[in-house]
């Protein structure tokens, strides 16, 4: 899977989870950029990303990811 494909699929996950078709994520997107992305939705997002790519994040990673770029790096390293 190329990085581009990952972003494409990730974008769909974001749109589903936040129920907003206008969301476009890039490597610098953070929780501040998406209205509903709070700590409660974070767990939902993580679960949906894990499901989409068939991977598991480690405990430490879940809380330290700074932006979508870091999330994609982790996904790349697992698939």
């Amino acid at each position: 899977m190329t990085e581009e494909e990952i972003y494409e699929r990730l974008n769909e996950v974001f749109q589903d989870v936040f129920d907003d078709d206008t969301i476009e994520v890039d490597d610098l997107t953070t929780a501040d950029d998406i209205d509903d992305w709070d700590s409660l939705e974070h767990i939902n997002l993580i679960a949906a990303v894990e499901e989409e790519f068939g991977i598991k994040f480690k405990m430490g990673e879940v809380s330290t990811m700074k932006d979508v770029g870091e999330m994609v790096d982790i996904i790349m390293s697992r698939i």
Partner: protein
Amino acid sequence: MFELEYPFDSAYIMKKRKSIKKTLLSDGSVRLKKNIAVLGGSTTNDIVTVMELFLLNMGIEPTFYQSEYAQYWQDAMFPGEELQNFNPDIVFIHTTNRNITEFPNVTDKPEEVDELLEKEFARYKQMWNAVSERFKCPIIQNNFEMPFYRLMGNKDCSDYRGRENFISRLNMKFYEYSSQTGNFYINDINYISASYGLKEWSNPLYWNMYKYALCFAAIPEFAFNTANIVKSVFGKNKKALALDLDNTLWGGVVGDDGVEHIQIGQETGVAQSYYEFQNYIKAHKDLGIMLTVCSKNDEENAIAGLNHPEGVLKPDDFIIVKANWENKDRNIANTAAELNILPEAIVFVDDNPAEREIVKAQLQGVKAPTMDGVENYIQTLDRSGFFEVTTFSEDDLKRNEMYKANVQRAAQQATFENYEDYLLSLDMNAVIDDFIPMYIQRITQLSNKSNQFNVTTKRYTTAEMEEVFASDEYIRLYGKLTDKFGDNGVVSVVIGKKDGTTLNMELWLMSCRVLKRDMELAMLDTLVEKCREQGIETIKGCYYPTAKNGMVKELYKFFGFEKISEDEEGNTVWQLNVADYTKRNNVIKVHGNGDA
């Protein structure tokens, strides 16, 4: 909604819940509104949002109160203003083994562990008592799931110092309490977690990171299981099964293969699977679930198949057998009409996806679970929770017999020319009188599940009904009807509240199984009699329309009441001058408590 029927795709629900909720809320269906207080010992946010979806799909629109994180005990014992004003219709206490205050130590003596057990249990009992006293509403309480590690290995389950042993004992104490207390329901997470897989369920990551006591992916299973109890308490259970025959109750096609070649009994593994399934279905009769057949077959072949000597189910077990070549949706609609229930109270069981689709498309609300492979039949039906048992009355045990008698009555009706002659021939006897304790449970159950012959659709919890029973501000009547074919049990309930010389009717309901028997007139006669005894001069009644109670729109008119108002929504108010009333029932002999 298909996405929310068992077996559902949990990950899909978790991801799409926002759009699922929008779809459900815009489908135009009318739902019961209920307030649910969730007192959690761990995070409950996602549990609540998913439970909401399942409840909406079951016909209940919930409003939730959630404790601040892990404040379940404080909220139960010393509720804040928000909870006090919330007025819950049900309280759900979401505790897990993460909330057990103290487990035994390996160095403890038996007496010390006994004491620990009592102490832990007392904490819960105190909380339940406080909640039921304050809110007088049903309580749902989780039992405890097994611990995720076993310090003593296998001995952990049998040794008094083991956590597993301690949890099992605590669970037993919960069950004892539950069996002695009405309106208290155990949410069996011990079973659900085992069924899901305890290893995944109790993955400690979710506790340590998010303070969830179960893994994220298991939330839909958990929420569904809990929602089933809620919907059952509020009278949304299904009432009947419509069963296909070929490849559903036995293997093979009886019309093509011949009775001697269908698979049922002990001969092969497949035959045994169908045998086990027939056993499972037959056991539903005792729960009061009505069994009917809906099969594309010549009736002769269908009956021959059901008379297979190795089979469990016999023709006699079914109230109605529809074996013909009509479309199945028509047959199910007819079955519903003959049983006097709504089509949506029927679960259609058929191995053929095309038949399921057509029935679901034609009859809104009829459930048709995916029956795929006989080895999965029991699990699919069982876990769907259509018939979740919360209250269980004597009447449930007898329901199949009663409905069968109804079908016999209908057959006899055809031979009378005059309807009153027919009614007289039924030799009907009724007990109509003030409530007695023995029937409170049945009366409450009726108030929660009668939708059609029900002018106000007011629901009562057992506690509320007991309050009505204890108060002298009310005139209450229950009606129990017997005829020559059998005992119909308690079938009608009427409650009115006194206000000077006026009686304001709060509830007038009747079970549809006794429609057109003049039972409602017998009830009215007795009500008027009681009013006269107690100096009531006027009876006032309201009709509140719902999607289902159209049949009683004109009930008060039929009773001889005068309409005094009507608003835009079709709510009508009626009144009757007691002095003008003359007795209406001529066909039922009426008795009071004690002289029946």
